[in-house]
């Protein structure tokens, strides 16, 4: 029974640990199917790792010794320990020492020279990963914004619809008017043609009658001229010419 109490209390107690430890420990201590499965969202990683001096000793050690021994405390401790080990031959200087010095110098040189580059490379890999995801998001946002703009444009076009219909209506009215006037003109022309025909007919008829009458009168006049009249006219003309009374006038007239 007590174990059950401990098991129930364990998750709450373990949640108070620092987050990375808590996550790992919770994985192992979460009772099966009794608590709700919420390990998300994961707590964020800290920005920087723990502060370390000389690549080995955490800063907290120096802070721990500072109240009692000041700034030089840890260094005195280190030097003393080293000299103790050397003098008591707990650590013996042999060929491994030189080999150790060599490999450590190579390692420290490598870290100092290429450390920041490697860190930047790792950061770049992560940045690329995030950038890819952000790209997807931005593409989606851009696509949606373009869709919004196009939608707004369509709405503006819809507003202009009434003008379009008015124009179309006017157009059709004009077409109808034009058609009507054309047909009116056609009617007028046709009627005029008919009336012109009638007028021309009448004129022709009158002309024909006039011509016929002139011809008839001329024919009858010519027919009615007797030979005595011809002789009398000719003798008069002869007299007039030979007497020269109106010679030039007659000649001019002839």
């Amino acid at each position: 029974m007590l174990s059950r109490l401990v098991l129930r209390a364990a998750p709450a107690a373990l949640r108070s640990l620092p987050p990375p430890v808590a996550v790992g420990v919770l994985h192992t201590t979460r009772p099966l199917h009794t608590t709700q499965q919420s390990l998300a969202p994961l707590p964020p990683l800290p920005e920087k790792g723990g502060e370390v001096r000389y690549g080995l000793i955490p800063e907290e050690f120096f802070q721990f010794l500072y109240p009692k021994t000041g700034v030089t405390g840890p260094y005195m401790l280190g030097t003393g320990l080293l000299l103790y080990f050397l003098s008591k031959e707990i650590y013996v200087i042999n060929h491994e020492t030189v080999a150790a010095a060599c490999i450590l110098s190579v390692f420290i040189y490598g870290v100092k020279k290429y450390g920041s580059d490697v860190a930047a490379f790792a950061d770049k890999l992560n940045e690329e990963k995030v950038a890819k995801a952000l790209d997807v998001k931005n593409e989606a946002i851009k696509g949606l914004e373009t869709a919004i703009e196009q939608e707004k444009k369509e709405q503006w076009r819809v507003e202009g619809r009434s003008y379009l219909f008015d124009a179309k209506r006017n157009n059709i009215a004009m077409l109808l008017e034009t058609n009507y006037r054309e047909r009116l003109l056609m009617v007028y022309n046709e009627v005029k043609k008919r009336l012109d025909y009638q007028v021309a007919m009448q004129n022709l008829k009158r002309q024909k009658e006039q011509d016929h009458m002139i011809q008839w009168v001329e024919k009858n006049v010519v027919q009615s001229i007797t030979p005595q009249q011809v002789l009398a006219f000719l003798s008069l003309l002869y007299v007039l010419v030979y007497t020269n009374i109106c010679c030039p006038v007659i000649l001019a007239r002839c």
Partner: protein
Amino acid sequence: MNLSFFDQFTSPCLLGIPLILISLLFPALLLPSPDNRWITNRLSTLQSWFLHLVTKQLMMPLNKKGHKWALILTSLMTFLLMINLLGLLPYTFTPTTQLSMNMALALPLWLATLLTGMRNQPSISLGHLLPEGTPTPLIPALILIETTSLLIRPLALGVRLTANLTAGHLLIQLISTASIALLPTIPTVSILTTTILLLLTLLEVAVAMIQAYVFVLLLSLYLQENI
């Protein structure tokens, strides 16, 4: 503690308890396990990037069936790399200097590739014993030579790794002993020797990485022929 030159190659024991298992498993503890996150810390990112690179390089020449070997080859490469590099530190024991360990890695894996080839495509596998375009009179001799070369492969794999690492470690020991011994008498020569030791250390770092890569690369080559 006074060390002889070969103390570094003895399998470590503490109060009668063999520590070989710890020395084999410890390097893996130094590698971060992949966290349940999308963006990990720098070390995990670099580790993922490196494993991705290695797996891609190893698996590119292999066909799809060969990709089943991805896990074992990549993990073998990481294992050997870590062991070799950590062995360069002072007072450490390098398991890959032991012939027994290297043969235990090389022989079963080589045999696995051979048996895969013999089982699935025996004629192609045996056909590798005769290079193309050999003149007819030479065929029997060449078959014998190729068979010998085939059977010597596991031995070569194991011994190559052992010899390279053992020789490197021994050389480091010898030259550092020389430089320490010369220090009281001729300091100049001692400094020269130390310079040589520095260069040798650089070489040993390179050799450690290259030997691990070559071991795995040759295994993947043998696999390519047979799968």
